């Protein structure tokens, strides 16, 4: 090594934070461009498939046949590309250190374009976020960034993609912080702002500085009108719940069907969507032109109600049947229709003067977004960005908070997280994502796990209990467990003469578990509910057991901890003596 050459080379070498800064801008541009291309591709596909004035036959055939194609693609090649893309992006950020396989953005782009372009009632924003995040993840790997840096690119790309897809840069930043990171005080705020701005500049340089909606000027006609907005908040909360519960219910039914039907499920949804499109073609695809009409008071009460119900049903079917597309746009659509309907009713029947129904449609958009997506700050700023009118804040906050509270009370888990739970993924709730705990379940657990096969006989389990002092064992195989059995269960079974029965009949499935990042306090609380054994499971697959915690493992951990402290104490004493 030459001592003279090293300092020059060191100066030339780009430090990681410089690379990160450059990548932030480049990824923002690429994510923004991908979002614009995604939008253009959906429009082009829609024109190609439906033409200008489609026949009834086309309404049926296009979503059905295209869903057969996307069903095959999603089943065989891109299983991670189903649904919105926002929950998957959250999983990548929180549980996989920002890792998204390279095929995911490509798959999401293709299947998203085919699904939304063929008439499925879904949004383009969620897929745009996943595509942008997927691109960022791949680029992060090319540059061999540290895991923390690679992880940081996910919200950066999400903000950029959303900023380009919806043309609201501030709301995009808040969405990345509030929904993806789950922390409004995250250190990444600077990067997300930079990415959002860079992306929206690129988007506007291509598509022009046109807002998605031409929104009428907002006026609060009378202070008593705030009551009307409170009513809108209640209705918004109820519609949000209906949407969330309906979606989870129907998706649960689809997921319970045999695995082999998974390939055809999108087409099943496609047939129903085709029938709906014959009667209500306005629910096709993203549907922002009809949101624009509602915002300008251009729809009659019966039309508003019809579109609200039809969109709710169509979106639930499209999403639950496993197509690729988001719920961001449908939630805004539902909000505009529900808000517009409330506005018309208030205009007719309220005993005080009220504003135009369009103003209610506008607030309704934010209200449903707060109720379904559960990102209240994003929803407030998104509507503010659309209107650029400060007056909208107070009614919007009233309606949003009521809707948010109702939705949260009756559906404590957010929709995105509930969807993940249906896929056996337990994402940490925002409040527990980064708790200031010193000891976690992962530190305490014993990694050696004994799994007894469910095909084993009861008498074999009894032998296992006799060999050790454990009060319970996990049942399962190949690292995946399905339940547990206790010593008392096995002893009772032997006494009742069923010692030759397979163990599967005794399995207990109703028990508590923890994840490796859970605190020791939660571990102790949940261990008290179980029969002396607490499984520690993966967040990405709750059937995958990573370790177990028993009273003995806790004692071992505490003893080990105590010994380490004893080693430190004398030196401190010596320092004090000095």
């Amino acid at each position: 090594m030459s001592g003279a050459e090293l300092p020059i080379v060191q100066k030339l070498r780009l430090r990681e934070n410089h690379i990160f800064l450059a990548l932030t801008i480049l990824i923002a541009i690429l994510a923004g461009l991908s979002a614009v291309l995604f939008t253009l591709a959906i429009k082009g596909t829609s024109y190609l498939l439906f033409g200008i004035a489609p026949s009834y036959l086309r309404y049926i055939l296009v979503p059905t046949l295209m869903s057969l194609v996307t069903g095959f693609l999603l089943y065989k090649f891109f299983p991670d590309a189903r649904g919105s893309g926002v929950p998957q992006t959250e999983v990548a950020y929180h549980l996989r250190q920002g890792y998204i396989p390279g095929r995911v953005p490509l798959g999401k782009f293709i299947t998203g374009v085919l699904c939304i372009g063929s008439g499925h009632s879904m949004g383009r924003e969620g897929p745009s976020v996943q595509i942008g995040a997927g691109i960022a993840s791949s680029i992060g790997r090319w540059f061999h960034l540290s895991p923390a840096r690679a992880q940081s690119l996910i919200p950066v790309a999400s903000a950029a993609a959303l900023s380009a897809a919806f043309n609201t840069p501030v709301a995009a930043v808040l969405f990345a912080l509030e929904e993806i990171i789950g922390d409004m005080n995250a250190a990444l705020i600077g990067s997300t702002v930079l990415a959002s701005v860079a992306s929206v500049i690129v988007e506007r340089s291509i598509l022009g500085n046109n807002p998605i909606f031409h929104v009428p000027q907002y006026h609060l006609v009378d202070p008593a009108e705030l009551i009307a907005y409170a009513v809108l908040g209640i209705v918004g909360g109820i519609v949000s719940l209906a949407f969330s519960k309906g979606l989870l219910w129907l998706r649960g039914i689809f997921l319970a069907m045999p695995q082999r039907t998974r390939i055809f499920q999108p087409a099943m949804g496609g047939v129903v969507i085709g029938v709906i499109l014959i009667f209500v073609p306005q629910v096709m695809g993203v549907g922002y032109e009809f949101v624009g009409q509602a915002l300008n008071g251009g729809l009659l009460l019966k039309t508003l109600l019809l579109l609200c119900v039809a969109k709710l049903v169509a979106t639930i079917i499209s999403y639950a049947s496993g197509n690729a597309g988001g719920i961001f746009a449908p939630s805004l659509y539902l909000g505009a229709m529900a808000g517009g309907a409330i506005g018309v009713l208030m205009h007719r029947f309220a005993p005080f003067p009220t504003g135009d129904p369009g103003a209610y449609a506008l607030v309704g958009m934010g209200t449903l977004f707060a109720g379904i997506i559960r990102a209240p700050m994003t929803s407030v700023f998104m509507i503010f960005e659309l209107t650029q009118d400060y007056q909208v804040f107070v009614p919007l906050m009233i309606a949003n908070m009521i809707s948010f509270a109702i939705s949260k009370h009756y559906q404590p888990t957010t929709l995105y997280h509930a969807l993940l739970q249906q896929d056996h993924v337990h994402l940490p709730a925002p409040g527990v994502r980064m708790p200031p705990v010193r000891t976690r379940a992962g530190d305490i657990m014993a990694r050696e796990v004994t799994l007894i096969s469910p095909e084993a006989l009861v008498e074999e389990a009894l032998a296992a209990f006799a060999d050790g002092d454990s009060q319970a064992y996990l049942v399962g195989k190949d690292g995946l467990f399905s339940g547990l059995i206790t010593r008392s269960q096995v002893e009772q079974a032997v006494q009742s003469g069923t010692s030759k029965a397979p163990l599967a009949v005794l399995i207990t499935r109703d028990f508590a578990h923890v994840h490796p990042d859970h605190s020791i306090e939660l571990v102790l609380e949940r261990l008290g509910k179980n029969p002396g054994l607490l499984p520690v499971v993966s967040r990405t697959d709750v059937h995958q057991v990573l370790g177990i915690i028993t009273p003995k493992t806790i004692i071992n951990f505490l003893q080990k901890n105590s010994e380490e402290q004893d080693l430190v104490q004398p030196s401190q004493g010596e320092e004090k003596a000095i």
Partner: protein
Amino acid sequence: MEVRTIPRVLHNEVVLLVALSVAAFGVFVFTRHMSAREQRLEARIAAIWYERGEQFIAAGDVEKAIQAFRRATADSHDNQKYMLALANALTLGHHDAEAQQLLLQLRESDPEDAEINISLARLAAKHGDTDEAVHYYQNALYGRWSGDHVDEQRGQLRKELIHFLLRRQQRELAASELLILEAGLPDSAASHVEIAKLFVDAGDLQHALKNYSEAAQRDNHNLEAQAGAGEISFQLGNYAGAIPYLKAALELDPQSQKTRPLLETAELVLAEDPLASHLSPQERQDRILADLDRSLKRLDSCPEPASGNQASSEMQSLKAEALALQPKLNSRKHPPDSDAAKSALGLIYRMQKASAHCGEPAAADQALLLIGRQHNGVRP
């Protein structure tokens, strides 16, 4: 050895960043190209929808036209022509709030555009909002026009404004707009007749007469001009002036039920007026006596009102007054001077007025009423 590995690191980071930048630029160019292509496609589709909308409007199917124009504006966001067509269709379909919203939005981007202001004016006129309608009509009249025959279009719009003002009983505003319209009027009989009618509606009979006369001069076979000039002259009390027009109108339309009685009445007014300047004292006396006699007969022919009735006592009093005056006017040596003639005409006027309830007056009685009115009730 380490010196050799560091350039590789350099190579990786810098080259990757450069490659990524080039790729980003390439994607940007590609996306721009795709966007332009998409916009051209959308523009073509929007034009198809616009044409369909126009066809629906022509066929009177406003709701379908609205849907078609909506599709056109959805596919071509910035096209003012399509947006304006949608706004106008919305107005036709009574979706006024949305139409106004759209028009105001258009006006924000182009406040001087005549077409946008016209549409807003018509919408305000539809709602009966006079001030706003006049505001937008004025903005349109003095705004920016496009296409051929701009002056003609402006004139038509001003006429529309005048008609609106007349409907809203804003006669003074209408008259002042008419004066502006008159200044730029094409030199044809039809134009003068048209504006003369509007002047009549606005209550400006002098300008109405002027335009009817102009029209009659340019085309003496124009029935409307001749009859109009005759009627307005008659209304203005210029009976001598009315007669030639009325005669000409009658020649053009001998069956006219309106012109003939007017002509007869005008001739009677001229024949019965005792204050006509060309009369000798003797002729004046004869006319006064004849008029008084005719009025007495009109009163006598009147059915007797209930006794004690105020009208009855008034008629009795007038009759007594007339009978007392008759001998005084009858002297051949001392024919009535101008004051006495005026006084007598005043009595005749009051007698004719009092006999208003006595049935339809004859042409001569009608002429006496007009003579009395022409001389301002002729109070001595």
